[in-house]
Each structure stands twice: as structure tokens, then as C-alpha cells.
């Protein structure tokens, strides 16, 4: 293979992987945003946030099975997640806000065990799929030799739009003002006559909706299984630890960083190791290091900023 073609190919590969990384980043952001909002306002660590993403994907699959319409699946995913979030808030979360973080972790862990098993019971152990919507199927030529699926670009665009809307909402709307006030002093807010219980329920419901939306968007490119929320939850934790707990901006920066580092690391670590290691050793060391990269990134960030890049709270 002549050298130009090879470097041309690896440039294309790099561009594709960068897009994939950004796309993982926006999905992570949608999940991490809810997690960080809930923590910022209620000082509540919600492990069950990952299963909200999983349930969102399943709601979408169920909605599509009933209607064969992607928009209906979208409505199912978003409204179903919202309802589930409000139900969980009412039944369990509400009783945990004032409890220790340990109790919160355990209580929401119980919910994960229940919902994961429920998904397995209702939808079976074999993974489900959601077809890519007609209008967004196919690929487009982004640059010479780079054909990229439209749907993946749509995920990226939708994620960025939601992120921008969220920013505007938190920054300039009355609800956003209450959320920010709740994060800095919930008791004062309550004393000023704001119904804090409703605010808290609203924040949880909204976060669940974002996670469910992320689940829906991921469903056509991943297989929908009962463990999909577990892996993503830990990544979302890494994101908000890097970004600083309670900070939407931090979650955005952290999510893109984690998405890019993880995706690019997995595709290039082995090749980079081959530059100075024997191929066999590189094939072993590459994947191992690639799977550690985001945690190393996290450890590095924490070493210099123990409460994350944009962390206001040091709880």
C-alpha cells in the first residue's frame, strides 16, 4: 500500500472516530446533565439514573412495536421516562433527600436491581433493536472517502440542540432560576414561599426525561439490553466528577472529553503501541490501556482540581 493512501485512510478513520466520540459525548451529556442537576439541587446521588436511560430505550422499542412510527416511539420514550421518574421520586427518592449518601446509594441500588430484572422479565434476555427512522437512514459523503450515517449526525445535532436549550433554560428561565437558587440554598427558597417539593419532583422528572431521550437516540445504533444503563451510569459519573458535580457546563465539557478520549483511545491505542512494542505485546497492551484512559484522565483532573473543573460544591 503506498504511503499516501495509508495516511489518507488513517485521516478518514480519525475523522470518523472523532465524530463517533462527539456523538458518545452528547449522549453522555444528556444522562450526566440530569444526574448533576439532581445532585446540585437536592444533594442526592441517584444511581438509578442509568436505568432511566435503559428504560427510555425499552419504552421506545415498545412504542415502536405498537405503532411502527419513530415519532410515536419518541413520545413513548420521553413521556414514559418522565412518568417513571416522577413515580420513583414520589415513592422512594423523596424519602432519601435528607438521608446520608450511603442510604441514597443503597436505596437507588435496590431500584436498579428491580428495574433491570423487570426489563429482563418483560422484554426477555435477548437484546432488542429499534430501526433507524426512514427519513434519517442512509449515509452522506462528508469528505473524500468519508461516508457517514445520517442518523449518527442527527444524534450529534439533537444532543447539541438539547444542550443549548438546557443552557438557555437554566440560565434565563424562571424555572432555571429556581433550580440555581435551589442548588445554592434550598431552605431559603422554601422560606420565600416556593414549593420546594414540586421543584425537586420537577428536576427529577426532567432529568429522567433527558436520560430517556438519550436512551431512545442510542437505541437504533446499540442493541437495547437490560445492562445498557449500568455501563453508561459509571461513564456519567466519570463525566460529572471531571466537570464538577452540580455544573451543567462542567457536564458538557466532561462528556465531550470522555466521549472523545474513550473512542479515540480504543481505536488508536494499539496502533500507537505498535510504534514501539512488538505487535503481539501491543495487541495486549493497547486495549488494556484504552479501557483505562478515561479513568486516568479523571485521576489527572482530580489531582489538580479535587472538586472537578467547574465544581462549585465540595460535598
Amino acid at each position, binding site marked *: 500500500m503506498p504511503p499516501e493512501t495509508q495516511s489518507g485512510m488513517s485521516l478518514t478513520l480519525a475523522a470518523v472516530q472523532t465524530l463517533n466520540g462527539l456523538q458518545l459525548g452528547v449522549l453522555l451529556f444528556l444522562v450526566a446533565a440530569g444526574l448533576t442537576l439532581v*445532585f446540585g439541587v437536592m444533594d442526592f*446521588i441517584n444511581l438509578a439514573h442509568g436505568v432511566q436511560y435503559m428504560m427510555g430505550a425499552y419504552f421506545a422499542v415498545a412504542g415502536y412495536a405498537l405503532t411502527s412510527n419513530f415519532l410515536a416511539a419518541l413520545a413513548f420514550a420521553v413521556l414514559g421516562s418522565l412518568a417513571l421518574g416522577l413515580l420513583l421520586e414520589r415513592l*422512594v427518592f423523596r*424519602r*432519601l433527600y435528607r*438521608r446520608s*449518601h*450511603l*442510604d441514597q*446509594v*443503597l*436505596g437507588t*441500588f*435496590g*431500584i*436498579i*436491581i*428491580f*428495574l*433491570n*430484572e*423487570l426489563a*429482563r*422479565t418483560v422484554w426477555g434476555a435477548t437484546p432488542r433493536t429499534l430501526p433507524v427512522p426512514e427519513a434519517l437512514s442512509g449515509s452522506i459523503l462528508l469528505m473524500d472517502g468519508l461516508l457517514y450515517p445520517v442518523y449518527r449526525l442527527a444524534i450529534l445535532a439533537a444532543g447539541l440542540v438539547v444542550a443549548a436549550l438546557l443552557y438557555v433554560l437554566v440560565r434565563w428561565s424562571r424555572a432555571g432560576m429556581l433550580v440555581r437558587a435551589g442548588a445554592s440554598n434550598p431552605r431559603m427558597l422554601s422560606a420565600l414561599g416556593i414549593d420546594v417539593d414540586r421543584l425537586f419532583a420537577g428536576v427529577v422528572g426532567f432529568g429522567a426525561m433527558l436520560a430517556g431521550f438519550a436512551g431512545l437516540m442510542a437505541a437504533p445504533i446499540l442493541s437495547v439490553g437490560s445492562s445498557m444503563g*449500568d455501563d453508561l451510569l*459509571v461513564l456519567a*459519573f*466519570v463525566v*460529572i*466528577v471531571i466537570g464538577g*458535580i452540580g455544573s451543567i457546563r462542567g457536564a458538557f465539557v466532561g462528556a465531550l472529553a470522555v466521549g472523545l478520549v474513550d473512542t479515540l483511545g480504543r481505536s488508536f491505542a494499539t496502533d500507537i503501541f505498535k510504534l514501539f512494542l512488538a505487535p503481539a505485546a501491543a*495487541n*495486549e497492551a493497547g*486495549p*488494556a490501556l*484504552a*479501557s*483505562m484512559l478515561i*479513568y486516568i484522565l*479523571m*485521576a489527572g483532573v*482530580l*489531582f489538580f482540581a*479535587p*472538586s*472537578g473543573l467547574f465544581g462549585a460544591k*465540595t*460535598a
Partner: protein
Amino acid sequence: MTARAAEDRPPEAPALPAPAGTRARALGRLLVPVLLFAAFAALPAAADALGQTFLVSFATRVMILALAAMSLDLILGYGGLVSFGHAAFLGIGAYAVGIAAEEGLTEGLAVFPLAIAAAALFALATGAVSLRTRGVYFIMITLAFGQMAFFTAISLSAYGGDDGLTIWGRTEFLGGTPLEDDRAFYFVVLGCLAACYLLARAIVASRFGRVLQAARQSPGRVAALGLDPFAYQLAAYAIAGGFAGLAGALLANHTEFVSPAYMSWHRSGELIVMVILGGMGSFHGAILGAIVYLGLEEALSHLTEHWRLLFGPFLVLVVLHARGGLLSLLPVRPRDG
């Protein structure tokens, strides 16, 4: 050492008139563990008498996970550090046995110290980063490091990768294979559990243990006394990692198989559940918690394949309503320190 372990109260505690119940508590601290260990010692004979020999294997598993839960209680109950990545230490201990066997090293006098050292070193390295943070950051970071170990194990394609690694025979000792006999292995595990229990109690009763508990209650005051809370917590974290590494080495020998699933964060969560079920801050509580958790899992899974549908809500109810764990429901409260 036994005498010292039984004497949990610091010797210089002020000689106030004993409040009602103190004697009952002291009795509980002595009685509950004695009964627990007596039951474990008698179990194989009882299993034979009842013709339920599978109980021996089940109880071996219970004791191994009890050892892991106990090690978690050292940092969680006494140190106040909510570590959500404890299964990684267990898994590293197990992988040390598996990888050593794969490379032809099966001598227990080398393998067991290797497993303990590997887990303790991982705890030391990750603890040094994690302990710079507090509260919920600490929970998330330990969770993330646990997950890092999990994904690293998956990527080890030379050692089974995702599928795990079968171990072709239990660890040897001086050329012999004493662990191959399930009954003998049971008593080895029981011996390890008992020795670690006494050692752990000696640790929390020592000056080191008292500083560790003081650092949980008020790191500022510990620092004001000229002691570095970070150093004590890090040492405790590494010790707990070492204990869990031993449990992992025993687990690998028990199942003769290691897999990344040993390190999944669900396993870490289960270990926390065991500690909480038994009541934090008492090592026999952790043992009791392991018995209850695994017993419940066994009983419910006979009832239905989807036993988690019952267990999840049960856990939520325990968190909401039984705050001191199951031992708090006994008339003698074991909470010490």
C-alpha cells in the same frame, strides 16, 4: 490477641458508672461471634447428618464473601469511607491466582501473598487519588476505579478476556494439594475468616484503629492533634484491599474459575448491602450480613427465576425502615467504636 480483641473498650475510657445495658452489649460482642463461628465449625457435620452436602460448598462461598464484606466494613463502618469499588480488590486477588496458575505458578506460599499484595497495592494507588476527595466524589471515584479494573480484566485477552479463566486445580502448598478436598478447603476458609476477624478487631482496638475512627468523626480534630488523617485512611484502605485480596484468592480456588464479573460494580454494591444488612461498624455484623444476603438470594432464587424483583424492593425497604441493620433488631446492640 484474643484477650485484647474481646476487650474493645479503650483502657483509658473514664470509669463512669456502667449504664444499664453495657454488660448486655459486651456480652453481645462476645456471644454473637462465638455463636457464629461455632455454627460454621459445626456445619459440615450437620450437613452430613442431614444429607445436604451442598451446604458445605454454599457455606464456603458465604464465608469467603463474609471476609470481603468484613474488609469493606473496616473502611466503611470504622473509617466512614463509602467505597463503591471494593469488588475490584476481590477480583484482583482472584485474578492473581488465575494468572499465576496460567503462568505455571501454583505454590500457595507464593500465590497467596501475591494475591494479597496485588490487591493492597491497587488499593494503595487508587486510594491515594480517591482519598483526596470527600463525600459523594469519593463514592463516584471508587466506583470508577472499580469499573476500570473490570474493563481491564475484560481486555486481558491472553487471560480469557470476557469469558474468564478456568483454573485447572486448586493452589498447592509445598507440593501437596491440601485444598483439593472440599472439606479441608472449608476449614481452611473458616480458619482464614476467624484469623482475619481477630486481626480486624485487634486493628480497630489499636491506636491506629482509634485514630481511624476519630478521623471519621472529625478529621479536623485529628489533624489538630498533629496526626495526618489521610495517611491513616490510606493505610486502612490498603489493609482492607489486602483482606479482600485474600478473599478473592479463596474465591478463585473455590470456584476454580475467575471472570471479570467478580469485579462488576453490582458486586461492590452487594458487598455494601451485606455490611449494611448486618449493621455497619461490627465485623460479625458483616459476617451475619453475608449469611443473610446470600441465604436470601439462595432461598428466593428457588422460589422464582426473577428473584431480584423481590430483592430490589426489599433492599429499598431496609434502607427506608431498618436503619441500623439487622443486628439493631436484636436485643443486644453490637455497635461499638
